[in-house]
């Protein structure tokens, strides 16, 4: 009995396709310059064909059925390509739902004599399409996640420079939030620089770190501890007054760490530690 609705759908293949495409052209959100009508038609046809071809009475409510792999793949490709073209996930979702609506309308028209079967078929198809919608969403998000991961890596690379301010003295201006992933990058860069340059003092300037809570403080302390294991010393500078206040209120103990208000102070301290002196040079009276 269930096979009936599948046959109806297969016979109405082109009717469904036209209904679907018509419904899309009524939607104002479509960007004509991003995708041509011809492409829309081709994508719709591909999806509809894959769907109708593989639909049978057993898998009518199971989106995970292996027969639908082709459909899922087509959906994923569609989602990713739309994402790359700049469509919002809503626009893509609306497009896919267009197929569902076209199918439901067609079914309704073709099964007026059998309301009970129509209801049963509708239930199954709705479950199926819910699955498909989820696939569309997941693919979209995964695509975005990949971009974010790539960008995060790039940002990590460029935002932790190690500067040799003087022989034996390194400076690291840390800009942005200091999470555990970032901390590992900072530590790695810093320690390797210490080995390469034989530096004995590293100045960590945190004026570019927006917020310092217990977790960030922990990351800073780990960095200081690691530096000490390498036989060098760490000075933390650039502590804004609000940060100092937050640190005390949170009960964070920085007594083991050398802190200076500014990079300049930290530098002076470093020179002193290395027994270096900066003096104004006297220019002789006659040239």
């Amino acid at each position, binding site marked *: 009995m269930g096979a009936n609705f599948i046959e109806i759908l297969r016979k109405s293949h082109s009717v469904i396709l036209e209904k679907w495409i018509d419904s899309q052209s009524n939607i104002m959100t479509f960007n004509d310059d991003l995708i041509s009508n011809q492409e829309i038609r081709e994508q719709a046809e591909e999806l509809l064909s894959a769907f109708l071809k593989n639909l049978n009475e057993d898998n009518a409510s199971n989106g995970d059925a292996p027969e639908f792999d082709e459909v899922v793949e087509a959906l994923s490709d569609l989602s990713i390509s739309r994402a790359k073209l700049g469509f919002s996930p809503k626009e893509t979702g609306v497009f896919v739902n267009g197929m569902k609506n076209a199918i439901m309308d067609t079914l309704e028209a073709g099964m007026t004599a059998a309301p009970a079967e129509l209801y049963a078929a509708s239930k199954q198809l709705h479950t199926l399409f819910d699955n498909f919608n989820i696939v569309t969403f997941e693919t979209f998000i*995964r695509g975005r*996640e*990949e971009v974010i*991961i790539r960008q995060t890596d790039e940002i990590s690379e460029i935002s932790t420079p190690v500067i040799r301010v003087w022989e034996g003295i390194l400076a690291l201006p840390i800009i942005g939030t200091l999470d555990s992933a970032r901390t*590992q990058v900072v*530590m*790695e860069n810093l320690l390797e620089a210490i080995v390469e340059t034989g530096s004995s003092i590293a100045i960590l300037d945190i004026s570019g770190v927006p917020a310092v809570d217990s977790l960030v403080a922990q990351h800073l302390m780990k960095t200081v501890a690691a530096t000490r294991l390498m036989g060098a010393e760490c000075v933390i500078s650039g502590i804004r007054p609000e940060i100092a206040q937050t640190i005390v209120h949170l009960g964070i103990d920085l007594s083991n760490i050398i802190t200076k208000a500014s990079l300049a102070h930290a530098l002076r301290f470093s020179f002193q530690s290395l027994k270096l002196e900066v003096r104004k040079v006297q220019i002789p009276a006659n040239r």
Partner: protein
Amino acid sequence: MSQMISVITKQSMLIQQDQDVVPFRNRVKECAVKLKMGLVNQTKLITAASELVRNMLKYGRGGQVLIESVSKRNQFGVRLVFIDKGPGIPDITLAMKDGYSTGKSLGLGLPGTKRLVNEFEIESTVGVGTKVSIIKWCNG
């Protein structure tokens, strides 16, 4: 940690004596290098493996380790499963607290090891044995 993880390669090693530790560590390193894991993460993984395998020898009377390269969604990693038929750990919560010590260890074994890896699971039954599973992702 079990869902959605696929196993790419799998090998097993028997650990029965001190001399098995180094070859084991080398195997783990090979696995990590093949997945192009960075040096710091490699070091953390192998150090964690070293801690756990020594535990297994010292308290568990030796056992078996599964070395697997795995993947989940976008990332690849190394999973190690340590299985022994030793006396078991009576109070796991206590063992996981920093500062816990039964032997002459520094009392840092399990909690410290857990910090080195991304996923850590431990099951133990007194009189039966212990099973510890860890995963270190390449970009973890």
